[in-house]
């Protein structure tokens, strides 16, 4: 078990390293360099050269990469090209919004969708299950902004509550005021992850329900509820943790579209701005942050799978 964990962590580290290579050299294809962009077209050649030297851009690419990675690991994300502001400064006000919305989505969305999915697995082929499957299949294939638009239509235009854009500052608002403030983005993201979670948790429980030992329990005459709570659910727990981690990783992507849709300042809108202004120092820093989160969540998903399934720990 331990050696497997270490191996998986090792693969995770290698992945992070590869990711950093892709992000760093991917953005280096960009024509023009940071010094020129920061000083503008009017800068003299001497000024540009001086800044290049100060930023370390005159060094070989590999050295630059090493320095960048070292700085990133010590929490220094570099200086934004367009605003001339340290990126950690730019992130400071925004990360709270992104974190708040994603963690609340996880807190609200995950338990509800798990309950729905498990209920579906408890009554397979019932009307409830069929409706649930149909709705979740449709939602999975629909883009995030479609779900967002439907919710805006329902809440803002039909019920007349909320606002199609998230306006106003978050300063000095209490927890519940913040929930109301970000109500629509959170609801949208809940729907986005729910559609995946419902399907996957339902499949996980159904899969356990189809195994021989459950059949044995049925044949023994164990009551249905007891089979589900005592026999099936406990064994499905590991896969479900796996599913949850995978879907939280999915949240990393979903949050980008949702932030742009509702137009509130967050990390995702910042990175989109970075791409539009070709601020590649910003893209490198934030891209690494997003990918790191994603890789860590994937790692948790895999470890959960190892923990829950002895067959994976002792591969044939």
């Amino acid at each position, binding site marked *: 078990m331990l050696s497997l964990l270490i191996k998986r962590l090792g693969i995770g580290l290698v992945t992070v390293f590869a990711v950093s290579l892709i992000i760093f050299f991917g953005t280096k294809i960009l024509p023009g360099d940071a010094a020129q962009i920061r000083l503008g077209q009017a800068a003299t050649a001497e000024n540009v050269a001086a800044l290049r030297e100060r930023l370390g851009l005159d060094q070989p690419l590999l050295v630059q990469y090493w320095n960048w990675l070292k700085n990133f690991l010590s929490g220094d994300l570099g200086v934004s090209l367009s605003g001339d502001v340290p990126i950690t400064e730019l992130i400071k006000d925004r990360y709270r919004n992104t974190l708040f919305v994603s963690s609340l989505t996880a807190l609200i969305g995950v338990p509800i969708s798990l309950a729905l999915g498990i209920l579906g697995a408890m009554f397979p082929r019932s009307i409830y299950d069929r409706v649930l499957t149909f709705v979740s299949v449709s939602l999975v*294939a629909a883009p995030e902004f479609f779900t967002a638009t439907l919710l805006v239509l329902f809440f803002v235009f039909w019920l007349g509550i909320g606002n199609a854009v998230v306006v106003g500052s978050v300063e000095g608002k209490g927890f519940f005021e913040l929930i109301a403030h970000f109500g629509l983005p959170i609801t949208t993201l809940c729907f986005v992850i729910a559609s995946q979670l419902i399907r996957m948790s339902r499949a996980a429980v159904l899969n356990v329900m189809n195994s021989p030992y459950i059949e044995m329990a049925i044949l023994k005459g164990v009551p249905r509820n007891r089979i589900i709570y005592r026999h099936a659910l406990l064994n499905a727990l590991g896969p479900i943790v796996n599913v949850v981690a995978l879907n939280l990783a999915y949240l990393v992507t979903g949050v980008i579209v949702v932030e742009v849709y509702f137009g509130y300042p967050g990390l995702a809108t910042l990175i989109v701005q970075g791409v539009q202004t070709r601020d590649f120092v910003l893209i490198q820093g934030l891209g690494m942050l997003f990918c790191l989160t994603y890789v860590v969540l994937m790692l948790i998903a895999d470890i959960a799978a190892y923990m829950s399934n002895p067959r994976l720990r002792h591969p044939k």
Partner: protein
Amino acid sequence: MSTDSPADQAHYVAPYDDGVSFDELPDSTPGGKFRLSFTGWVGTIVVVFWLFIAVFGPFIAPYDENDLPFPDAYSEFQEPQAGALLGTDVMDRDVLSRIMFGAGRTMGISFVATVLAYFIGVVLGIGAAVSSPKVDMVMSRINDAFLSLPSIMLGLVVVAAVGSSIPVLIVTAGVIYASVIFRLSRALGMEIKVMDFVEAARVRGEGRWWIIRREIWPNAAMPLMTDFGLRLIYVILFISSLSFLGLGVQPPQADWGSMVRENLGALQYGTSIIPVIAPAIAIATLTVAINLIVDDVSAHSGGKLSNRL
């Protein structure tokens, strides 16, 4: 297989978008009569409808994509009326015409990108499966690095580096999604490679290329084709999301994703909201319809493909 991550081996989990496990592949190729269910028919009709619009849209659209139905008036976000059946958008253009022009662009880019992804993914995947273990491992590890990045983030990095144009979009989506198909076709190749009939061919003295062409490919083709619809959905969503972020198809060209973005203002002004809802519905109906067909086909071929979504 022992070096692979659990996602490869997990039996119980319908893998996530980027994860493919070969347990989910249909066991057999569809034989006998294939009949679509009711939902399958609905899906087919919707897809045929959009295909028709994609091909003939530009010819039957009432206006050009950048023409103004009411050039003499200030006509932003008009309600539907004679002359503009779905109303007008943020720049006074006809929403219906733009949807018809955008159909071909959204669907065309996605389709070509998916085909490209298949080409790259299948060639490299089957190549890795029949190569020596060392080559296979190197290729798989590189592929894993790509798979462990959120696809939209990769797209953002590419667009930031080289700018956005239709060829760039196609190649980007093609390369990003090739990694999923690489994994799928490598897994298939690995599975087929150890089967008795391949063994027999090898003992018979057939060359590697002959085995790929005559033994592996025919057996891998069907599962791969069933998977095509599913990948197409993801590519459509990917392209539309990039366009929605303003980093995909560039204005003034119409595209469903960018139409939603352009007209987001309509939600605040409380005017006609059709410019936002119409392109969003267009994408959703298309992807859900493809999904309905995929569900039908995979149910028929005995696999649990639909679980993969």
